């Protein structure tokens, strides 16, 4: 026997022993055990300490609704806090520890909180620590955090992987008890695509926990027979260890499958869990019901359990929590626990039934019309005190008390989209009602059908109805014989007698008194009650406690429970690990990485890379002996301006625009005119938002009368394409224009510097003349290079130098960069990265993302005259708005420090040379700054009020945040080659 409390029978595999440890002590259980059942079998009732008061607590339930038995599992990086012992499958070598305790579970010095409980009542956060304010963060919160809490995390990376997945079905069946099995069977036989999701590791639901027969078989045997048929059907997918956690719009459900939680370590490469997104046409909720307790003084001692759970432990796991058990009930179901325990030879010391007319019990003493008013046993229940119907007090010895206050249908998923459950007088419980998620119906206990026969029938019926909605004919199967005795119940929520605390929410330590206090302080609506007392806000989301709390409040306000209402159930149904939500999108794989065509080559050169959106771009190329990035960047700039440099510019968005009306279309997209751009020419283009603000710029190259290639900034490639499609489809649907992105298809390099042409002439095939006359500034054309490879050549310049951009099919991008570098050797060609690119564009005064920052107009950018007034284009009407173009508005200017040693701080604000420094006297701000190796000092681009007319003025460049201030002169933004002679050379 594995433990003193093991009974006979059950669904455990007694031939397989499983060794595990709890708080360092080794125990033995069996395959099929949960941690909770194995601990109970070993006579361990004390499993944890409560959240706030550190009260000793034991297991309350046998399922995922468990509030108390939360433990830490495993160790090292796999340490996992707050797992429920009731759903933790036992595996060999399982390490479990109790949590929220001091040195040991039995002697917890923090239990002192229990003595000061009067200070820790509802609302104590709000009241106690209000003053002095500064103490909250530094003093109170750390103390509370240390005292109140759950388990601890490892602070190491989770070594396991988590998957996401997508499933499609006609019918999703949630739960595999009698209703779920019948629904799946009915739909499966009809040929529908069925997914049967079961939270537990075996199917059958309550059939495994009861002794009822179904068609002369034990319930569990019947369930296995049905499973055999379901398994044989290809159209049915059975998913155990899978909890449906949320019902979302239009038949989408999410579910967590715990693939490897029952193993010490996942199999190699296999995920720990999978988060499934299930697309269902119809769904049946057959999630059963949850039993609710009755509150009484000291009802939280280890050993006080739900009656249905005690029955489940006895029948499924062959375990009794103690050799002496008493029952406290307000309904007939509690009597079943007594009967099943007696049948297994357990001493039932009494059945306390609040109903004066309670039915007789065979084999145990009945206390009809009696109530449990208190209990004893600090670390484990020893006895209960009963107020008999005649008013006498009686002590009843018992190590476990099985409590039943009735059953609440698991309506949660029916409420995930505003559905409000309705009150059922007979069950004294909420059942699904109002608007259920479209396509979802509830069946069986989840719908208030609490007998096995009712569940079987409802499951089959729900499937027939759901499939008929889909046009699939399903036959109502022959229903097996099963028990059909309704549970007679007298609503009874809490015992009024007693001065001590009676626990409603055991996980958050909320008592009847707390609810009375909330009522007294006028936090009476259910939503206020919840937040004031924290009732139902723990990880169990109040599955066993919400109803009790509502009932107490209803009584205090003199309203009925349905009038009092219920809080809204939201996903997830049970706690979900963050790993499952993240899936594979962690670390480096958080987003996909885009590599440029020269990436491999650049990596070989030892380039430093920088993330630009998803792209990895070379930032600079350090050379031996360079110890600071500025050395590399300065060299790259100087060498490019002196001879020639090469930069991978593939990341710029490229959109292919074709069609009879391609030019007319671009005329509408760009603020400046495009209709008359000749074939073989490129033009700079500025795009405005419809509100007149500049948002992107680039070039458009006209390759043919009806063919353009448009470039966008790297950052806006997706947005510009989306906006162009919007203009094409929604604004001018009859324009003959077709768009497609070709960003990745071409490897594109900028070749810049006085020797750019000489270098290119070495690789461009000789039949193509790229001399200045034949191929002047802003020319473009289709050429071939290196002996016939198709290429595109654009004479455009971002650096301000004589420059080209050359594009070849991407697969040749690696070879081309090597070829260019080889051909450029005689010119001491240098590759340059994004930093040098940035320095050179600032030196040239080209606007980029820092300047096109979502607040600036064409006027601000010095491009006001480019905006065509003759044509209709996006943004031109509102670009004329007051405040966008007035004299004195911001103009782009250049800044040079008065003392060449001063760096210009990017983001700093411009202030007049004298006077106060304040927002009121603000003159503008610095957008871009860099050290210019050409000028030998820091330079900046800035927006300055009326800047165009303030050349030569000395300003203060102020950064009050860091307390710095320098003086700088207002100069033209074009620091290098303002006349543009170099780029036309």
């Amino acid at each position: 026997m594995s433990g003193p409390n093991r009974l006979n029978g059950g669904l455990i595999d007694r031939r397989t022993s499983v060794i595990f440890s709890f708080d360092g002590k080794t125990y033995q259980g069996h395959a099929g055990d949960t941690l909770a059942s194995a601990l109970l079998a070993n006579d361990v009732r004390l499993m944890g300490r409560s959240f706030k008061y550190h009260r000793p607590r034991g297991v309350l339930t046998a399922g995922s609704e468990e509030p108390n038995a939360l433990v830490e599992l495993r160790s090292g990086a796999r340490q996992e806090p707050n797992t429920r012992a009731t759903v933790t499958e036992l595996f060999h070598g399982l390490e479990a520890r109790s949590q929220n305790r001091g040195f040991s579970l039995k002697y917890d010095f923090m239990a002192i909180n229990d003595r000061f409980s009067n200070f820790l009542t509802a609302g104590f956060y709000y009241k106690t620590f209000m003053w002095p304010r500064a103490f909250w963060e530094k003093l109170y919160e750390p103390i509370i955090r240390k005292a109140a809490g759950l388990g601890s995390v490892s602070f190491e990376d989770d070594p396991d992987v988590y998957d996401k997945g997508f499933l499609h079905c006609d019918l999703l069946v949630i739960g595999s008890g009698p209703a779920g099995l019948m629904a799946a069977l009915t739909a499966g036989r009809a040929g529908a695509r069925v997914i049967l999701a079961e939270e537990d590791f075996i199917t059958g639901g309550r059939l495994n926990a009861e002794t009822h027969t179904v068609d002369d078989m034990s319930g569990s045997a019947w369930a296995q027979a049905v499973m055999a048929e379901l398994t044989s059907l290809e159209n049915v997918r059975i998913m155990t260890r899978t909890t449906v956690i949320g019902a979302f719009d239009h038949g989408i459900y999410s579910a967590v499958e715990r693939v490897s939680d029952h193993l010490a370590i996942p199999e190699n490469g296999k995920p720990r869990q999978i988060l499934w997104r299930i697309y269902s046409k119809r769904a049946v909720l057959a999630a059963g019901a949850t039993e609710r307790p009755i509150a009484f003084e000291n009802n939280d001692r280890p050993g006080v359990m739900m009656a249905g759970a005690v029955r489940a432990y006895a029948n499924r796991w062959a375990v009794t929590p103690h050799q002496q058990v008493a029952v406290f009930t307000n309904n007939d179901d509690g009597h079943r626990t007594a009967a099943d325990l007696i049948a297994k030879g357990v001493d039932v010391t009494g059945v306390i039934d609040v109903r004066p007319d309670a039915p007789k019990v065979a084999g145990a003493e009945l206390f009809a019309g009696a109530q449990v008013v208190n209990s004893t046993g600090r670390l484990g229940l020893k006895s209960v005190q009963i107020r008999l119907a005649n008013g006498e007090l009686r002590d009843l010895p018992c190590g476990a008390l099985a409590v039943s206050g009735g059953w609440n249908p698991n309506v949660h998923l029916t409420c995930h989209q505003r559905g409000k459950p309705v009150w059922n007088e007979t069950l004294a419980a909420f059942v699904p009602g109002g608007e259920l998620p479209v396509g979802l119906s509830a069946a069986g206990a989840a719908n208030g059908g609490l007998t096995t026969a009712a569940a079987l029938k409802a499951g089959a019926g729900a499937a027939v109805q759901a499939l008929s909605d889909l046009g699939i004919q399903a036959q109502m199967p022959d229903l097996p014989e099963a028990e059909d005795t309704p549970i007679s119940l007298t609503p009874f929520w809490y015992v009024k007698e007693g001065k001590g605390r009676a626990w409603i929410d055991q996980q958050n330590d909320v008592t009847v008194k707390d609810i009375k206090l909330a009522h007294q302080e006028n936090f009476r609506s259910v939503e206020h009650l919840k937040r004031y007392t924290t009732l139902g806000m723990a990880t169990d989301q109040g599955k066993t406690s919400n109803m009790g709390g509502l009932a107490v409040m209803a009584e205090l306000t003199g309203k009925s429970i349905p009038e009092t209402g219920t809080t809204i159930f939201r996903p997830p149904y049970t706690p979900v690990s963050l790993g499952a939500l993240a899936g594979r999108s962690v670390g480096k794989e958080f987003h996909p990485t885009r590599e440029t065509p020269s990436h491999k080559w650049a990596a070989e050169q030892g380039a430093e890379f920088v993330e630009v959106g998803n792209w990895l771009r070379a930032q600079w190329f350090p050379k031996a002996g360079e110890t600071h990035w500025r050395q590399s960047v300065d060299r790259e700039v100087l060498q490019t301006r002196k001879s020639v440099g090469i930069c991978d510019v593939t990341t710029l968005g490229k959109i292919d625009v074709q069609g009879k009306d391609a030019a007319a279309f671009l005329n509408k997209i760009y603020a400046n005119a495009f209709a008359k751009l000749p074939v073989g020419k490129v033009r700079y283009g500025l795009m405005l938002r419809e509100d007149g603000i500049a948002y992107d710029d680039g070039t458009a190259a006209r390759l043919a009368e009806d063919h353009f290639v448009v470039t966008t900034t790297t950052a806006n490639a997706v947005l510009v394409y989306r906006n162009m499609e919007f203009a094409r489809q929604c604004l001018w649907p009859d324009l003959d224009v077709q768009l497609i992105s070709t960003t990745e298809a071409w490897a594109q390099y900028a070749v810049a510097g006085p020797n750019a042409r000489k270098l290119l002439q070495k690789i461009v095939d000789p039949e193509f003349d790229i001399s200045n006359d034949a191929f002047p500034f802003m020319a473009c054309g289709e050429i071939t290079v290196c002996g016939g490879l198709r290429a595109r050549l654009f004479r455009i310049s971002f650096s301000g130098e004589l420059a080209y951009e050359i594009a070849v099919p991407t697969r040749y991008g690696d070879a081309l960069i090597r070829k260019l570098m080889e051909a450029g050797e005689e010119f001491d060609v240098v590759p340059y990265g994004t930093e040098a690119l940035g320095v050179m564009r600032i030196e040239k005064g080209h606007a980029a993302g820092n300047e096109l920052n979502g607040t600036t107009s064409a006027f601000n950018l010095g491009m006001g005259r480019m905006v065509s007034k003759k044509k209709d284009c996006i943004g031109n009407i509102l670009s004329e708005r007051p405040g966008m173009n007035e004299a004195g508005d911001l103009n782009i200017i250049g800044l040079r420090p008065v003392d060449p040693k001063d760096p210009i701080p990017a983001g700093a604000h411009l202030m007049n040379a004298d006077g106060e420094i304040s927002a009121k006297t603000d003159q503008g701000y610095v957008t871009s700054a860099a050290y210019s190796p050409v000028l030998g000092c820091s330079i900046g681009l800035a927006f300055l009020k009326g800047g165009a007319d303030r050349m030569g003025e000395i300003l203060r460049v102020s950064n009050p945040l860091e307390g710095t201030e320098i003086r700088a002169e207002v100069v033209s933004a074009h620091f290098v080659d303002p006349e543009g002679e170099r780029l036309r050379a």
Partner: protein
Amino acid sequence: MLKLKSITPLGADEPRVDHFSGLTITEITGRALVSLTARNEQADVTRDKAWTLFGIDLPDVSVSVVGNTYSALWIGPESWMIDAPYDGHEDLADQVKTALGDAASVVEQTDGWCRFDLDGSAVTAVLERLCNADVARMQSGDVTRTQIHHLGCFLWHCDGGFAVIGPRSSAKSLHHGLTEAAQSVC
């Protein structure tokens, strides 16, 4: 003769093959692609000329037509991707443009994409972990655009397996996603 050597989307000289129990992932580099979009009111002309050039009908929504040399995949309203062997069709776009003239807009797409073919008994189970397409219900020839590993990809059911055609610059990320899923399942 070209003096330049091409590399694969994964950055190697030769395409990559990964074997798992129940799944093979093969990098495909020998296909040329071109997009073809009918100009306004030229859909019928485009179809006629395409039939003459390719010997196949341009397919309807969400499906493909596979011919001896050319295949056509529906990618959008009156828009298709034409697939042909790379050898002999390096300039596929020029060939198609010449044949279709003003009837359609034609754009070279060959090197915009990478392609991995997934074959084997586990292919459906692997794709279930990768994308929301109802893979089990896809018929041979069906093509859909879907997100795999955050990347917009074409998923094409052909030759008994599935081709995943994704953005070339993210080939390594896509390949990583595919192999991780394969490892999860196989």
